[in-house]
């Protein structure tokens, strides 16, 4: 296996928003074929981490580097990072009035094709492609004609994120609390979707608060983030321990 080929390397990363430092000397390496889970208390910097990797303009990098397949992406625009194969499933997917889900998905897909100098596909071709993907997350085609996330239930929004992931086929997917607010059936569908999608040449980062998701999607590593850095790394067992003892327990053993 390619277990020693890193997709993402984060080195000594410090990042701030509005002059408040959120990430403080973060180090993390993710290899191909691996699923990592990042856990940690509220406000520890998990969502900031995901947005910084995706290139959100509100965050400023103070120090360190982010390498994707060995190359620094710090200078790249968010859409270029997306084209390279970095995907972020949003914790709160954004509603876009007046834009149909189908148009949005097709434009995203074609933008990626265009960045790879491939021919864009027409709406009819796209329709058959997206219909196959819809089955992965068990959604009806009517879902496509609605406006992006507008009036979607919490579960539908999260499923829409997974649909986009399946469509864009990224190498690295960061799923920011994709499990929060889901009922048990939706959680199962989404977990199945993630497992079907996962492949040896890909990597996934799950940001979550709960052990529950990790029962369905088995991570190779679990990291605990606290105050802007990784304070502990372990195997799947660590999540169970955390569930029982809470984050305070980690502070004590420090």
């Amino acid at each position: 296996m390619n277990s020693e080929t890193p997709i993402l390397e984060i080195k000594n990363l410090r990042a701030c928003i509005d002059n408040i430092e959120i990430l403080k000397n973060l180090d993390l390496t993710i290899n191909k074929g691996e699923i990592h889970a990042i856990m940690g208390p509220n406000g520890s910097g998990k969502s900031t981490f995901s947005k910084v990797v995706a290139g959100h303009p509100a965050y400023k990098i103070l120090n360190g580097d982010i390498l994707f397949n060995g190359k620094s992406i710090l200078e790249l625009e968010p859409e270029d990072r997306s084209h390279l194969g970095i995907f972020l499933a949003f914790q709160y997917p954004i509603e876009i009035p007046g834009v149909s889900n189908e148009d949005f998905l097709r434009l995203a897909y074609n933008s990626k094709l265009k960045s790879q100098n491939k021919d864009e596909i027409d709406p009819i071709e796209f329709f058959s492609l997206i219909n196959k993907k819809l089955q992965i997350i068990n959604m009806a085609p009517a879902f496509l004609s609605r406006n992006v996330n507008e009036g979607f239930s919490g579960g539908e929004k999260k499923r829409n994120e997974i649909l986009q992931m399946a469509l864009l086929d990224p190498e690295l997917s960061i799923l920011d609390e994709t499990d929060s607010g889901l009922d048990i059936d939706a959680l199962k569908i989404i977990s199945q979707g993630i497992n079907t999608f996962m492949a040896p040449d890909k990597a996934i980062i799950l940001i979550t608060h709960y052990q529950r998701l990790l029962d369905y999607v088995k991570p190779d590593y679990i990291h605990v983030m606290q105050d802007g850095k990784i304070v502990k790394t372990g195997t799947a067992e660590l999540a169970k321990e955390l569930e029982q003892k809470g984050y305070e327990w980690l502070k004590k053993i420090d």
Partner: protein
Amino acid sequence: MTNQSNKILNTDITKLVNQPYKYGFSTNIEKDIIEKGLNKEVVRLISQKKNEPEFLLNFRLKAYKKWKQMQCPEWAQLKLSEIDYQDIIYYSAPKQKKKLKSLDEVDPELLNTFEKLGISLTEQKRLANVAVDAVFDSVSIATTFQEELAEYGVIFCSISEAVQQYPKLIEKYLGTVVPIGDNYFSALNSAVFTDGSFCFIPKGVKCPLELSTYFRINEQKSGQFERTLIIAEENSQVSYLEGCTAPQYDNNQLHAAVVELVALDNADIKYSTVQNWYSGDNKGEGGIYNFVTKRGLCIGINSKISWTQVETGSAITWKYPGCILAGDNSQGEFYSVALTNNYQQADTGSKMIHIGKNTRSRIVSKGISTGKSKNSYRGFVNINNKAIGARNYSQCDSLLIGNLSNANTFPFISVQNSATKIEHEASTSKIGEEQIFYFLQRGISLEKAIELMISGFCREVFTELPLEFAEEADRLLSLKLEGSVG
């Protein structure tokens, strides 16, 4: 949302929306001009130059007298520098041979001008299904497809020509929908109007072509005072479109038009505007003052008048196309997209006056403001005590881009009988940083993202435009919003 990222977003969008104005050139041509300034003699001189019958001279003089007694209204949400009416040229016409027999006699420089604007007047290139009347400063240059239309009994010509050829129709209808003293600018227009279009659709005829007038202001000091009159007789149908551009000058030019529509029993008039006058530079210098009175009279039963406008230009836009729904079961519609940028100000909306029974009206207004611009919707819905069963639906949506633009809605509704149904919806939304980031994260560029959101926002209005012009409107908005990002 954070300040820092907003700054980033605003600069990107500013770059995106600040495309240079494409139609800012001027044409050098020999002109016949009446010295600037306005008095009774100038009014007489205009009438004389146009060889008008007595009733029209009297119409003008009456209007001038009325205008002298009126004050410029101040209720609109507009800031404007005072207009010096003595510093405006009221008549400017390209010099040409007396009577043009064909387009071959039109000054090639003029044909070129319109060609550059994308309006082809020559036989080979013109659109096959659109008849065009081209107005340059104060006069109509040419009208295409006149003979073809005449076979159907449709009259489509400049209003000056109509005054000569069909004085009875002019005398009967001119000023019946917008009376001389209706407002300050309509009074001014009635005194000094120089040209515009005239359409007459006889009983039972469905006009076989789209009719269109293209207005071009060229002279730096000139005002344009156009007058358009459309009459649709019983059971007739017509679709009409006007387009407007002007050169880029650093002073403000005045454009005060009056448009009157009359629909008799079962007649249907669709009037569309794509307005792209020069809007001034990014510091707010220059640009057209666009003060327009447009009104349709649904006098016949089951008649219908529909206004669609895409307003992207002008330093100031001040217009409220409306319908007087006098005939029973008559219908009025107003669909509008107004885009303002930099220091542009738009105060626009509609008036629907319900008089007949079971009259229906529908207002859909979409305002997009970016830069430091101001965009206001002002509407008036009046349901008369006799208008039993009347219905109105109004929808006003505002979209803000960036943090410095401004949107207002002033709906005024007056209902005088209880057997009516009124609905009003309003919304304000903003293209926010998080929405844009969502697009970007999915690999979609900023340009495409904004284009997609704007076209989604305007869809309801664009579908109302005639097919040939829906594309043009889409292009026009993209032009204003397209740019050099990345």
